[in-house]
């Protein structure tokens, strides 16, 4: 089993490849790592020079890359499918909550945070993307899921593999035991897993606890009884969207593990 770990997209990336060591496997792992870097340069809101940052600054682009167009379209479809629970236009709300730089640099304490606006219009037509005035996109979660799916496809040519980007993971071939909590391990032979929760990426503003999962209806970090939701789906992109929607209270039809704030763990959607 070959394993490679590195940092990308503000999180720890782990590539597992069930193939004999050699030049072919190394080349596949190199391609996978380079693909993460390439997609981060497209979709990071923390890189001034990324395609997404440029779109957010200018409000429009007429020559978006196929990846950016595809992810924005996926995000808009997810917004419609979840009735707005998943919303790529939460950028200003996340920034208003205090998550305005890479998480490692976010101060643990700070002044009270404001609510941000969500739900702005986004038009995609061919390679053209136009944002409504005052609307900016955050593709952090869905972008990571998309990258996991892409990289998994690339890596799979070298053998059965697992790609894990800080909790969003996908597998191709083989069977992979994945730890969801100290007590629960899921064996995944096909598909993907994503976890959304407020147990990590937390900080405080004005004495209150903040996190990065914004409720688009309030423009503030979501409040609720759930601490963490893990969802299994066909792709990491779908799992990411479903996990976020489930965390915000949506009833979804997918295998999932829910952890409540008081520590209870609930298996649902056919898991036993």
């Amino acid at each position: 089993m070959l394993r490679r770990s590195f940092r990308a997209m503000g999180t720890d990336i782990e590539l597992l490849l069930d193939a004999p060591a050699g030049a072919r496997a190394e080349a596949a792992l190199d391609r996978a790592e380079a693909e993460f870097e390439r997609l981060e340069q497209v979709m990071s809101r923390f890189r001034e020079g990324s395609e997404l940052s440029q779109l957010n600054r200018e409000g429009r682009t007429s020559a978006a890359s196929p990846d950016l167009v595809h992810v924005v379209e996926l995000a808009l479809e997810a917004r419609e499918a979840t009735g707005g629970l998943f919303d790529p236009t939460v950028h200003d709300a996340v920034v208003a909550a205090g998550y305005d730089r890479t998480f490692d640099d976010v101060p643990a304490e700070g002044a009270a945070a404001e609510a941000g606006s969500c739900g702005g219009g986004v038009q995609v037509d061919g390679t053209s993307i136009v944002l409504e005035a005052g609307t900016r996109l955050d593709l952090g979660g869905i972008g990571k899921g998309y990258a996991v799916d892409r990289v998994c496809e690339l890596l799979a040519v070298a053998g059965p593999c697992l790609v894990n980007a800080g909790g969003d993971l996908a597998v191709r071939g083989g069977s992979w035991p994945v730890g969801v909590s100290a007590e629960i391990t899921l064996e995944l032979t096909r598909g993907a897993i994503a976890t959304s929760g407020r147990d990590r990426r937390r900080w405080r503003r004005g004495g209150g606890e903040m996190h990065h999962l914004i409720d688009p209806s309030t423009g503030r970090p979501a409040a609720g009884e759930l601490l963490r939701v893990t969802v299994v789906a066909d792709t990491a992109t779908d799992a990411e969207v479903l996990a976020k929607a489930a965390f915000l209270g949506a009833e979804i039809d997918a295998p999932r593990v829910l952890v409540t704030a008081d520590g209870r763990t609930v298996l649902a959607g056919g898991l036993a």
Partner: protein
Amino acid sequence: MTDTSHRAYAVVLALVVFFVSWAAVAAKPWVTAKPDPRLAALAQREQRLRADARLVKIVVDRRLAAYRAALGLRQAQIAQSKARAVAVTQAAPAPSVRVVNLPPLTITRSS
């Protein structure tokens, strides 16, 4: 007596004719009344507003038509997308997962 009365009537009549004539001349019926400049300005403004309203209506009608066309296109795209999603869901194998008692190779956590 009669002559005196006649003279008095004639004087009164002359006076009446004089004042009526005076009033008629003072009224200057041969001079046409000057239009009030404020009324003229109001009329101009009304005409301008009517022209603007016609233009705005044309623009709104065009935008509404463009919006309806875009809406139709978007609804068709959504329908296509939904049909594609349904087809993919029906065609793709469902994710395969079960709870096991094995040591994990990796973990998932809040991303």
